[in-house]
């Protein structure tokens, strides 16, 4: 039985009543929906009351792995992969939406959503893809000036050179994405004995990438909320200065700039960044993994990890979002 996790956001009493019936009528053999505790928004499927502020805000969240079902008073365009049910919500329509989602997740690997006693949004799936592990190997190679061979058949091995900060491989960047995305096969990691061995492996027309390029590509696959090995969502880090993000990423991830700005001023943990930005914990974790792997952030043991951050939207934030809107519509 594949149990698919369902988060709820801002549902009314009436919505809950419809949900209670609909969930029993799902008709996809071998699947069931499990409702996550209130406040846990990391379910594979999320049912959102769009007529609340939090619900409407959620529309802007980009987490392609999650299927969103919006309940809304008015018709509105929704992002790809999400569904809109106009009010009054019919049980039949909700069942249909659930059936489609269940079909979709039926064949995919189960993600264990671990829910601690103090259920909160920092809860992260246990099983994830290879991204954190790969990043960890890149970091280790660089820190130890080491040489590592990383095999993930059927793809060409990656030869990581921490001395020259480069990666030699016949694998293409899209193939490296696949290796990172892979959930069920762990790459085999072995140390290379000598520089000669690396050089031999990296001769004959293989691609040699700067390690930072590979780190970017690996981190951008996303780690589904999973942080690097030996790190936690309560590890405080600080940036020395604003990173030099490639421009295309700056446009794609304006939130990376925002988080970099916060971490340049102050050491913060992933959980504190979440409080301060209200972004999805997965986005923050991916950012954390990226900047740490790139060597841009450093752990700050002295930081106060207990400090609580409010989402202090300043008076000017309205002005700034209007300016951003204007800039994106002209030219």
């Amino acid at each position, binding site marked *: 039985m594949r149990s698919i996790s369902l988060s709820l956001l801002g549902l009314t009493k009436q919505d809950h009543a419809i949900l209670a019936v609909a969930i029993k009528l799902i008709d996809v053999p071998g699947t069931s929906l499990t409702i996550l505790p209130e406040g846990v928004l990391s379910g594979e499927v999320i049912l959102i009351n769009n007529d609340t502020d939090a619900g409407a805000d959620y529309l802007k969240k980009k987490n392609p792995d999650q299927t969103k079902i919006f309940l809304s008073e008015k018709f509105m365009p929704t992002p790809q992969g999400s569904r809109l049910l106009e009010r009054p919500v019919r049980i039949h329509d909700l069942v249909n939406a659930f059936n489609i989602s269940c079909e979709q997740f039926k064949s995919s690997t189960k993600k264990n959503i671990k829910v601690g006693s103090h259920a909160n949004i920092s809860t992260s799936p246990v099983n994830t893809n290879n991204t954190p592990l790969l990043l960890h190997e890149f970091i280790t190679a660089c820190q130890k000036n080491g040489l590592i061979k990383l095999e993930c058949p059927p793809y060409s091995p990656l030869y990581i050179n921490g001395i020259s900060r480069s990666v030699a491989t016949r694998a293409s960047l899209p193939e490296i994405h696949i290796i990172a995305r892979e959930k069920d096969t762990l790459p085999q990691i072995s140390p290379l004995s000598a520089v000669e061995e690396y050089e031999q492996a990296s001769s004959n027309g293989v691609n040699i990438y700067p390690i930072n390029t590979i780190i970017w590509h690996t981190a951008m696959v996303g780690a589904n909320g999973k942080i690097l090995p030996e790190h936690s969502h309560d590890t405080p880090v600080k*940036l*020395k*200065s*604003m990173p*030099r993000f490639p*421009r295309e990423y*700056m*446009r794609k991830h*304006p939130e990376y*700039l*925002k988080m*970099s*700005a916060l971490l*340049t*001023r102050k050491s913060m943990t992933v959980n504190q960044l979440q409080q301060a930005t209200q972004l999805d914990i997965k986005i923050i974790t991916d950012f954390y993994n990226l900047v740490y792997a790139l060597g841009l952030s450093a752990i700050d043991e002295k930081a106060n990890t207990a400090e609580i951050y409010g989402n202090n939207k300043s008076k*000017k934030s309205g*002005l*700034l979002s*209007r*300016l*951003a*809107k*204007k*800039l994106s519509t002209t*030219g």
Partner: protein
Amino acid sequence: MHIGEHKIVFTGPVGAGKTAAITCLSDAPVIGTDVAATDETLNKKDLTTVAMDYGYIELEDGEFIHLYGTPGQDRFNFMWDILCQGGMGLILLVDATSPDPAADCEFYLGAFDSFIQETGAVIGITRADISDNTRYEEVQDVIIEKGYPIPVLEIDARNEDDVKDLVYALMAVL
């Protein structure tokens, strides 16, 4: 110029691309406004005029973001404080082909220090398209471990998308 209006201040050495950058963003042709100013370095009673670039962005609700470029001549530096009052943030442009863009950064960051601490700043290294070497690292060295974030971007001040990226980066640190 009114104190308290929404404005972004552009500064940097002559030729760094302030006029070009403001032109990219402004909804109306950029004008060099003559601002009456008392030049305290000369004589308090002496009125002089200072040519500043001025443009604006009109938001959908009719609100304006005013764009001011600081006058180039050093003897009008006393204007900077007044110009910055109530400003949203600073865009510092330095020319990659100039002898020492890092020193220019140091000078302007120092001159606008309190304004930057209150608001925020971004640095655009211009003319990167015609510079032999990237000046990014030198500029980055000036701002490292300052304790506040200043994004640095290499841009062409005549390119609208580039200048917009500067503004986005500025907004992220405000």
